[in-house]
Structures are given as C-alpha cells and as structure tokens.
C-alpha cells in the first residue's frame, strides 16, 4: 500500500508552527485538557472492557491476573488458567482491536469533515464502505469453508482501497478543476455502483444473506491478537499522518482559496489526508465490518464539548473514538450474552440519542 506518501512542501511541513498564518485563523488552543479527559475516559473504558463479560470473572481477579503477568513484577496470581485465557485471549484483543478501530473511524471521520468542509462527511464518504462491502460479499458468496474467514479481511481492504481510488480518479479528472464537490459526487456514484453489484450478488446467493448482513453490521466478538497485528501498521501510519496534518486542516477551514493564498496546496493536503484516512479505515473495517456512526458522532461530540480546532478535534476524536467503541463492544457482547448484538446497532442506538441530546443542550446553552 502507499507507505510512501508524497511529502508536503515547505509551507505544509505540519509540525512547524504556522508562522505565516494570521492569529485569527489559528487562535491559541490548548489541547491538553481535552486530551487528558479523553485519556481518562479511554482508561475507564479499557477497565470495563477487560472486566465485563459473559464469563463471570470478578474485578479483583482480573487485576490480580493482569498484575501476575506483568513483566518485572514478581507477583503470584492465583487466577485459573481458564480465567486468564478468557482475559488474555478473548477480552484484551477485543479491547485493543475495538480501540484501534474506534480511533481510526473517529479520526478518519474528523479528517474527512475537515478536508471536505462538510459536517456530514464520515470515513465511508468516498466509497470505503461500499468497496469493503463488495469485497466481503464476494468472499462470503464465492468462498467455501474456512477460506472465508481467511480471505475476507484482505478482500474487504482491497475493495475499500480500490473504491476510493476510483472515486478520486473520477472526481479529480472530471472536466473542470477538481473541487471537493466533484470528488464527493464521484464517491456517491462509485458507492451506488458497487452497492448495486453487491445487492445483485446477495440476491443471487440468498442463503448467504445473513452472513453478509452480519458483516455489514459489524462485530468485534471474534477479535484476536492476529487481527490486531494485521491492522496495527496501517492504523498507526494513518493516525500519524492525520495527526501531522491537524494544523493544515485548521487552515483549510477558512476555504481552499484562502488556504492557497497562504501558500498551501489544498488539493495535495486533501489527497494525503484522504489516502491516509482510507488506508486506516479500510484496515479497520476489514476486521470489524462496517460499524457506522462513530466517524460522525465522536468528532462532533468533541467539537461541541471543547473546541473546533483540529489540533484538538483530531487527537481527542481518536482517543474518544477508541473509548466509545470499546464500551459499545461491551454492550454488544453482554446485553444478550452469550449471544452477540451487532456492534453497529449499538453505536447507532446509543450514539444517536446521546448526540441529539448534546446538540440540543448545546443550542439552548446548557452546555
């Protein structure tokens, strides 16, 4: 994949303090407190994540087990092999994978909203979901036996990346100068096309419908360390690139032409951010399925609660997104335990009302 991303030009070197930019555009923002709050939330979510599950393991047992397995600490834990197995092989991978996926979806959503200056943008805007969905569906209906679980992540990842590449190619070469609108419209068209193919395949293989449907709604119930290893490089690379561009996203907020006047190549920033977000999001959905809503509500919640600057929104969304998805997974795995609710149902069901409440109280000045 595109590990060699084109480096930004001099002015766009992201870590450099934005000297040339007027103070009006980039007011002093402290990200420290919101980040601290988000980190506390994340730690809380992780504690809940490792200690709550269908297998009744008490909180002290969980901590004793974890302490007993920490390196350099000679503490003897009396946890049974089975309990430790549940904690280490089932719950922890779920927590870590949930964190990575949540961080990626929320961070990707925030970045897309910035680069397209559209509050409704989410990481699926340019066809990631449709592409991954088609890739997954192809494997589910055409694959046989255990091949399905082996190849599904790769097919979903490839589908997502190809879909966004198609969108970008069509959107940026269509007639006039490429605008964000033409890219978004190309995304709509590509998504419609791929979804049509996917729907056709589903109809042709109706017994597989449940499998496809379950994947679309997402699941972290079978998370393993192998999944974590699979997506960690992509998610890390993606997160780092996005975070390096947080200041440029702030500049883009004033408009592409204004950003151009400040010497920023908006099209290039857009390409880098989209490429990075796509890589990470594609990796995330390839192991988790199409978990919706995280990319929209988490960044907006951060904006409503703290600050609209991307220097705050981007990192806090990532940390908050991780916390949110870890908790959503706990709900998904435990409400009807041992049966699992699709995590996408939880993120929407819990997330939407909370977000509406936030939006309302913010307007009426309660917050």
């Amino acid at each position, binding site marked *: 994949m595109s590990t060699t991303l084109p480096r930004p030009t001099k002015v766009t070197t992201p870590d450099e303090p934005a000297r040339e930019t007027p103070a009006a555009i980039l007011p002093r923002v402290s990200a420290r407190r919101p980040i601290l709050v988000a980190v506390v939330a994340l730690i809380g979510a992780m504690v809940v994540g490792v200690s709550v*599950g*269908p*297998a*009744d393991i008490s909180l002290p047992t969980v901590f004793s087990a974890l302490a007993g397995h920490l390196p350099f600490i000679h503490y003897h834990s009396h946890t049974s*092999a*089975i309990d430790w*197995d*549940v904690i*280490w*092989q*089932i*719950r922890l*991978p779920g927590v870590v994978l949930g964190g990575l996926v949540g961080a990626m979806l929320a961070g990707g959503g925030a970045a897309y909203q910035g680069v397209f200056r559209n509050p409704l943008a989410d990481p699926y805007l340019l066809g990631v979901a449709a592409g991954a969905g088609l890739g997954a569906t192809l494997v*589910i*209906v055409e*694959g*046989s*036996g*255990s*091949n*399905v*679980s082996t190849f599904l992540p790769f097919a979903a990842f490839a589908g997502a990346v190809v879909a966004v590449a198609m969108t970008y190619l069509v959107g940026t070469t269509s007639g006039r100068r490429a605008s964000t609108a033409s890219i978004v419209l190309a995304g709509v068209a590509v998504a419609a096309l791929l979804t049509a193919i996917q729907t056709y395949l589903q109809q042709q*293989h*109706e*017994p*597989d*419908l*449940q*499998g496809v449907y*379950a994947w679309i709604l997402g699941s972290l*119930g*079978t998370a*393993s*360390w*192998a999944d974590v290893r699979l997506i960690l490089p992509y998610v890390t690379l993606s997160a780092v690139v996005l975070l390096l561009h947080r200041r440029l996203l702030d500049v883009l907020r004033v408009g592409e032409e204004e950003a151009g006047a400040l010497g920023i190549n908006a099209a290039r920033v857009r390409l880098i951010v989209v490429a990075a977000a796509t890589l990470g999001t594609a990796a995330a959905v390839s192991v988790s399925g199409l978990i919706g809503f995280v990319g929209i509500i988490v960044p907006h919640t951060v904006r409503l609660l703290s600050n609209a600057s991307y220097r705050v929104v981007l990192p806090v969304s990532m940390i908050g997104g991780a916390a949110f998805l870890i908790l959503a997974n706990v709900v998904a*795995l435990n409400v*009807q*335990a*041992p*049966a*699992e609710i699709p995590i996408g149902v939880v993120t929407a069901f819990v997330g939407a009302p909370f977000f509406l409440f936030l939006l309302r109280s913010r307007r009426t000045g309660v917050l």
Partner: protein
Amino acid sequence: MARTKRRLLLALVAGTFGATAVGATVISTSLPGAAAVSATTTYPVQIAAANGKITIPARPTAIVSMSPTATEMLYAIGAGSQVKAVDSYSDYPKDAPHTKLDALTPNVEAIVAYKPDLVVVAGDTTGLTAELAKFGVPVLSDPAATSLNQEYQQFDELGVATGHLAQAKAEVTKIKGQIKNIVAAAPKHTKPITYYFELDQTYYSETSSTFIGQVLGLLGMKSIADAAKGAASSGGYPQLSSEFIIKANPDYIFLADTICCGQNAKKVAKRPGWAVLTAVKDGHVVGLNDDIASRWGPRIVDLLSTVAHSLNHHSST
C-alpha cells in the same frame, strides 16, 4: 457458509412450525394403531399433517420432495421409485433425482412442471400449500422433529401417504433397535459428560432439549448451551460466545460445520484461547457430518454411533 446458514434457518423455521404442529401430527399416525391390519393404505387417504388435513387421492407415483430429511425417509421406506424430483439440498441417497428446486424459496411453477401428485416439505413459509392446492397437488409438511418419537411418526406418516406403511414400521423398529444397542454398549458415567455442539463459526449451538440434544442425552450427555441466557427464547438454538464456551470448558466439542466451513480439531485448537480447553487437550473435538447432524432421518443412527464411538475412546484413555 451457504449451507450452515440455510440449515440453521431451516431448523429455526421448522422448529416454530413443529412446535405448533405437535398436536396435529399425532392424529394421523396413531390412527393405524393396529399396524398389522392397516399395513396397506386404501386411497383416498386423509392425513392430519402439520400444515392441516390433506387428502391424497391415489397412490402417489410422482413425489416431489422439498425436504432433505423426507427424501432420506422416502428412500428408507422403499418409496424411492415413486420420487420424481428432490430439492437442491437433498443430497442423499446419491441416486435420488436431484434438481435445482429451492426449498427455502420454492418456485411453484418449477414444482408444477414435474407434474407431482404429492409434494413433501419441511416447512411452508411462502404459502406453498395454498399455491399448489390451486393445481390440486397435496402438500405434506413434515417439519423438523423435536423428538425421536416425532421422527418415528413422520416415518409412519410418509408410509401411509406412499403406501409403504409396513416398511415404515419396519424401519422404525430397526432404528429403535440400533439406538438401543448403541446406548447399551456406551460407557456409563456417573456425572453427565458436557459438550459444545457447534452449528457454525458464529457459535450458534443446540441445547439438550433439541432433537440432537435429546439423542446425545441418551448417552448421558449435557449441552453447555443449556446454561446460556436466551436458550429457551431461541427455541433451543442460542448463540454462544467464545468466552462463554471457554468458561464452560466442555468435555467434548462436536463440530457440525465440517463440510460447510471446513472446521476440524486442528482449527479449533488454533482459535484464540481454545487451546486450554479440556476437550482440545484430551483430543475430544469430534467432527460430524453437517448434513446428518441437521436432519432427523434414518441416518440419526450414524450420528449417535459416531458420538458413542468417541465416548468409548474417552473411557479407554
């Protein structure tokens, strides 16, 4: 993938139908109580089936079976020569007239094209009975049996319908005898042996009260799914989770997703966290034939025999 989902769906659909139809089915099959006397059917014959009272005017010679289990039963009672077409999932016996007929979304026109005089189904969710009634074709529904007795009744029912009641009775006697022998030879345990019965890779399972659960229960075995919340509301087919299974630590794992999903003992041992399970460590992960494990036909004896064999192995090691 395709097969498991369908089997599960069929089991669920048939399960709901079975539950409502328990009372109805009994009438017809307890009717020829004097078996020796009424061993031959006099047509027209009326059968109180799961889908209502049906009349078969004459000995059927063009049966369309839309149920893999019914197909196996029809051949077992010697009615195979009267079968004209079987659905796409009826893969046993090999010499049955296989077609592409889809049992889940049956196409009336495609069925009528075979000019059937009896259609056997395992459940009717699409109004097939009413549709085929317009063509004067009787539909006999034999939904998933919820007990061995129901399976035996279905043999009788098919025997009456096809004019092979004597052979149906003989087949039931044979199955009963075989089961008795297997159970008698199986090792006795003071504590019930626990097992996890895997229907697919999303951990859908079966409780001890399901048809298969009752059959394994004959060997003194108990499903870990019994303890799952939602075991009852799911009709005995709850979804479990990896964590639940590991914590329950069953003595045995039975895989009914070997054909559909290529699962086996090796792959189970490699699942995250499963290596510590007693069943895995003791080599008690047993692959079953998905098809046999999801049907309630004559080959239930094979299933019981496979499971009993693994238990014998258990006691000798």
